[in-house]
């Protein structure tokens, strides 16, 4: 740090350098509980992915044009003409999916380890809002390429808001900027995606991180019985945990590069309000809610689908047990596993619905409730 040694005296005469140095040193070498391992990296992976989205998003904004006449063409330009545009776009699109996945895994890890309990309830609540923001990012961003998939998935998605009682139609009208999905919708979603949500998420994430740092990582001890960290049984954040995270980071980068190149995001066909493609569905992270709503009439559906997010939000206040170890929390674990299973099941049902598959030589058509029906082919002449 020869450079730093040279400028330090200049800074010391103007600012309280020792204070800053002490703070940085403390943060860097902050002792973490011994068991901090692989599963604890998903938080920072989510953070890295958020930064990835911001950087690739800013880059995409250089060439992206948010009007109905030019949006699709600008994405095509990015993919075909801009140097490495395909890479930036691929990283942004896959980054979105991976970020949602990492946030989900991080939430599951936190749930399993009871880290949401006192004194970290607010950190959890912020986390749920972070998750909501991330999903909204996905929803608003999905419309921007203005292809058939974007247009019709957004149509389906915004229709659901219309089902909310009393305020639903107003909400839908404001969200869409009119009656249908138009250039107005594109503009509104763009503003949300590029200005409102990034700032909101930044504030939430910074607060979440500060709280996490101030309170330290939770252990598996009981509530109110947390022992201060013994330096002998701890790992300093830097360099130990950071190096561990570095290894996982390599995996993440490898995974992202692989996905971008092996399963590239396609350009699609330009949005056509007069042609509805078959089997339009929202993105995977909305599939479970989408499918759930089919089984209930409108109002009841909305109420039922509000239960999971509400439970998630209020969970630290609903769970009264002082235990954190998963083996000592059968009720919480059951609820968690059940919730997860339901989400996955409904998601799978949502995936299979309105599809036709051939199995064992027989064609089956799944209706909107994902019930299979045998398809009898008319006798060929």
């Amino acid at each position, binding site marked *: 740090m020869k450079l730093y040694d040279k400028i330090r005296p200049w800074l010391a005469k103007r600012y309280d350098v020792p204070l800053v140095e002490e703070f940085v040193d403390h943060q860097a070498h902050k002792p973490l509980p011994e068991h901090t391992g692989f599963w604890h990296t998903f938080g920072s992976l989510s953070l890295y992915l958020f930064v990835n989205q911001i950087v690739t998003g800013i880059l995409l904004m250089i060439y992206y044009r948010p009007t109905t006449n030019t949006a699709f*063409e600008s994405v095509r330009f990015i993919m075909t003409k801009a140097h490495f545009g395909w890479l930036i776009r691929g990283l942004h699109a896959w980054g979105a999916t991976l970020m949602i996945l990492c946030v989900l895994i991080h939430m599951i890890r936190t749930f399993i380890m009871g880290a949401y309990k006192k004194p970290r309830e607010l950190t959890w609540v912020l986390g749920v809002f972070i998750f909501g923001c991330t999903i909204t990012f996905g929803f608003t961003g999905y419309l921007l390429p203005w292809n058939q998939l974007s247009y019709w998935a957004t149509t389906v998605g915004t229709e659901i808001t219309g089902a909310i009682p009393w305020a639903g139609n107003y909400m839908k009208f404001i969200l869409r900027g009119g009656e249908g999905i138009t250039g107005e919708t594109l503009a509104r979603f763009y503003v949300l995606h590029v200005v409102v949500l990034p700032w909101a998420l930044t504030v939430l994430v910074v607060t979440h991180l500060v709280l996490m740092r101030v309170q330290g990582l939770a252990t598996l001890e009981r509530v109110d019985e947390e022992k201060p960290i013994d330096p002998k049984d701890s790992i300093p954040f830097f360099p130990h945990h950071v190096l561990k995270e570095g290894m996982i980071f390599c995996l993440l980068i490898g995974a992202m590069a692989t996905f971008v190149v092996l399963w590239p995001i396609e350009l699609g066909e330009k949005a056509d309000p007069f042609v509805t493609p078959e089997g339009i569905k929202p993105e995977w992270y909305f599939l479970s809610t989408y499918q759930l709503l089919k089984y209930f009439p409108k109002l009841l559906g909305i109420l039922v689908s509000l239960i999971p997010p509400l439970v998630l939000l209020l969970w630290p206040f609903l769970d009264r047990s002082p235990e954190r170890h998963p083996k000592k929390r059968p009720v919480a674990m059951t609820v968690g596993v059940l919730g997860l299973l339901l989400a996955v099941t409904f998601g799978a049902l949502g995936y299979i619905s309105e599809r036709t598959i051939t199995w064992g030589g027989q064609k089956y058509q799944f209706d909107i409730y994902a019930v299979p029906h045998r398809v009898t082919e008319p006798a060929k002449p």
Partner: protein
Amino acid sequence: MNMETKVSRRTFLDWLLGAGLLTWAVAFFSPVMSYVWPAQKRGPGMQTVSAGKETDFADWQTKIVAVNSQPVIVVRTPQGFRAFSAICTHLGCIVGWDAGRKQIACPCHAGFFDLNGRPVAGPPPRPLQEHGIAIVNGEVMVKSA
């Protein structure tokens, strides 16, 4: 193991790590720099294409250029340059130029268009869409319709 060997091993690992991280940083930055470098003279809203230099065109000389991946026929008349979509409005063939008749001609079904793009003979039902032309620095620039 003596101190010197320990020190050199540590430094070697550090050196490797440093090199690796530097490579990593370069690998991240290069595509970004490349991406930011303008891909074409004009960005995604490409509005005009050059059909060549003004001096390349004699009177009544024509050329077909691609504007937004659509063929456009450029004609130099004594009164100036005209440009029209080169897709015949009958069945979509690419039109050419009939020097004898001084008209735009479609080779498929002998459709003819005058110098205002209007069909004057044969089956084409609609006129050819005209494209604007601007001469900029001696270059014949064709605007997209």
